C-alpha cells in the first residue's frame, strides 16, 4: 500500500474528472454522485465530489456533512477561501472529500475559468474528481460537464428521462473542453437508476435493454428502486456505505465496471414468485 502511494506520487497522472449528469431532474444524480464517489474512495482512490447545483445544494445533505460547511465552491472560485479550507473530509471513508455548492448565489457566478482553476488544482492531488451536475442544460450543468474526461449519464427507465439523457450525450460530445480542443471525446457511461424489473415485465417501464439501445453508450448497470436509497439519503449516508443494501451493491458493481473490472449484471430480473404467492396474489 505505502509502496504504491510512493510510486503514485512520483509519477502521478492528473486526476480524472467524472461528471454525473442526466438532463432531467430527480433521476438520482446526487445519490449516484455520493454513492459513486464513496465507492471509488473505498476502492482506494483519492476522490473529491463537487456539487455544482448552486442555489439548490443537496450533496452535503446526502453526504451527511451539512453542518461542517464553511466555504463552498463559489468562495473558492472568488478567492474568498482556499480549496483546502473548503474541502470537507469525510469522517467515514479515508480519501473522500466533499466540496459543497453555494446555496445563496445564483448559477451565473459559476465561470468556466474559475471552475477550471479549481479542477486543475484538485487534479494535482486527487485520483478522481466527481462533479455532481444540476438538472437542465443551463450554466451550472455546462460548467459541471465542461472539464469532464468521463461522464456517468444517469437515466430512469422512462422516455422523458431517456430523451433528456440523449440530449446531454449530444452536448458532451460538442460543448466540452475535450470537444473544443479536439481531444479524445468524453467517455460516456450509462447508469439506469430506479429500476424495477417487475414493472418492466408488466410493460410499465422501459427495459434496461431498450434504454441501452436508444442511447447507444457503454452500460455500467442498473440500480434497483430501493427503500434503502431514501433511508440512506435521509440519514446522510452514501448508499454504498450502508450495509446490506441492494442499491449499494449495485453501485459497487457500477464502480467496479467503471474501473474496468468484470462483474455479472444483477438486479435486472424480477424475483421469481413462488407457486403459493402467485396463487394468493394473483
Amino acid at each position, binding site marked *: 500500500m505505502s509502496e504504491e502511494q510512493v510510486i503514485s506520487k512520483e509519477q502521478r497522472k492528473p486526476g480524472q474528472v467524472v461528471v454525473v449528469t442526466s438532463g432531467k431532474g430527480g433521476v438520482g444524480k446526487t445519490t449516484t454522485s455520493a454513492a459513486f464517489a464513496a465507492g471509488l474512495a473505498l476502492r482506494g482512490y483519492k476522490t473529491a465530489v463537487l456539487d455544482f447545483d448552486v442555489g439548490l445544494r443537496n450533496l452535503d445533505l446526502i453526504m451527511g456533512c451539512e453542518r461542517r460547511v464553511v466555504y463552498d465552491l463559489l468562495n473558492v472560485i472568488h478567492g474568498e477561501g482556499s480549496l483546502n479550507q473548503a474541502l470537507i473530509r469525510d469522517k467515514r471513508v479515508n480519501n473522500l472529500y466533499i466540496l459543497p455548492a453555494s446555496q445563496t448565489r445564483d448559477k451565473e457566478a459559476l465561470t468556466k475559468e474559475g471552475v477550471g482553476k479549481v479542477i486543475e488544482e484538485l487534479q494535482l492531488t486527487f485520483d478522481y474528481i466527481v462533479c455532481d451536475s444540476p438538472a437542465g442544460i443551463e450554466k451550472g450543468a455546462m460548467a459541471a460537464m465542461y472539464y469532464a474526461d468521463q461522464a456517468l449519464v444517469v437515466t430512469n427507465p422512462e*422516455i422523458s428521462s431517456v430523451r433528456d439523457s440523449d440530449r446531454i450525450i449530444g452536448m458532451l460530445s460538442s460543448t466540452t473542453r475535450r470537444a473544443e480542443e479536439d481531444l479524445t471525446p468524453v467517455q460516456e457511461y450509462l447508469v439506469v437508476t430506479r429500476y424495477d424489473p417487475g414493472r418492466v415485465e408488466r410493460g410499465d417501464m422501459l427495459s434496461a435493454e431498450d434504454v441501452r439501445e436508444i442511447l447507444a453508450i457503454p452500460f455500467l448497470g442498473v440500480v434497483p428502486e430501493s427503500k434503502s436509497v431514501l433511508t440512506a439519503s435521509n440519514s446522510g449516508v452514501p448508499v454504498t456505505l450502508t450495509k446490506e443494501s441492494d442499491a449499494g451493491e449495485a453501485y459497487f458493481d457500477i464502480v467496479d465496471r467503471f474501473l474496468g473490472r468484470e462483474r455479472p449484471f444483477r438486479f435486472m430480473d424480477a424475483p421469481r414468485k413462488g407457486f403459493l404467492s402467485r396463487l394468493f396474489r394473483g
Partner: protein
Amino acid sequence: MKTPPELPAFDCKGSVLTVMVLHIRETDPVLLYPQLEQKIGQARTFFANAPMLIDLRSVDGPGQAALDLNALVVTLRSMGVAPVGLRGALPFLHEEARQAGLGILAVPGVERTIAVAPPEEPAREPEPPAEEPAPTEEIPPAEEVAPAEVQEASPLLGAQPTGTNVTVALPVRSGQQVIAPNGDLVVLSSVNAGAEVFAAGNIHVYGALRGRALAGIDGDTTARVFSLQFNPELVAVAGEYLVNESLDRQILNRSVCVSLVNGTLRCQALGTFTQG
C-alpha cells in the same frame, strides 16, 4: 523560384459552384417578408453566410416593378444570408441591383439538376407547404438551444464542400440537426426522438428513425426516406408530411420506405413491395 518579368498576382479561373437560389414568386412585402422570416429565420444556422442568388423569373413586369430590391437584400443580409446576384430581372432593376452590390446573371438554359425533377415550376409547387407545416412549431425549440446545434451540426455539414452526399456515423441525438443541403443524407446509426435530419435528396437511416426526417427540402418530389426501424415523429418529402399519429400502426417499427405518390406520402414496409 520563377523569375518572369512580371509575377502573376492572381489567376482567374472559372469554377462551377452550387449556390442556393431564392425563387421569388410574389413580391408583395406583406407576403414575402413574413415567409422569408419564417423559413430562413428559423434555420439561421443552415443559412448562415450562405451565398444566395435571387431569381425573379417567376415574377411578371408589374411584380418586379413593385419589388424594393434594396429592402430585400438588406433583409436577407440581416438574416445572415449573403445575396450575391440577381437573375431573371428586367433591365429596369439592373441599376438597383448594382447599387445593392449584386451581380447580374443571365438566365441559364437549364437549371442545376436537382435529381430528375423537371426544372419547371410544378416540381417546385410543393415547396411552400414545406415551410408551413413542418418547421413552424418544430424548429423553434431546437433553435433555442442553438449553441449546441451549431457545433453539432457544422462538422457534419463540413463534410460536403463538393456539394453531394453526407454520411453520419454517430447517432443523431435529441436536439441535434443534420442537413445534407445538396444531396442524400445517410445515417449509419439511429435518429433519436427530438433530433432532426434534412436532405435535398433521400434520407437513409440504417437504424431506428425516431426523430424527424425531411427529405427533398428543395422540392424534389422523387426524394425518399428509408429506415430500418420506422417510428418517426414526423416524416416529410418535398413538403408533404405525416406526423407519427397519422402513420399506419401496421408499419411502425418495421423497415419502411417513404415516397411521394400523386402528392401524398406513401409508407411501404420494405420487403413487401407489391406491383405498382
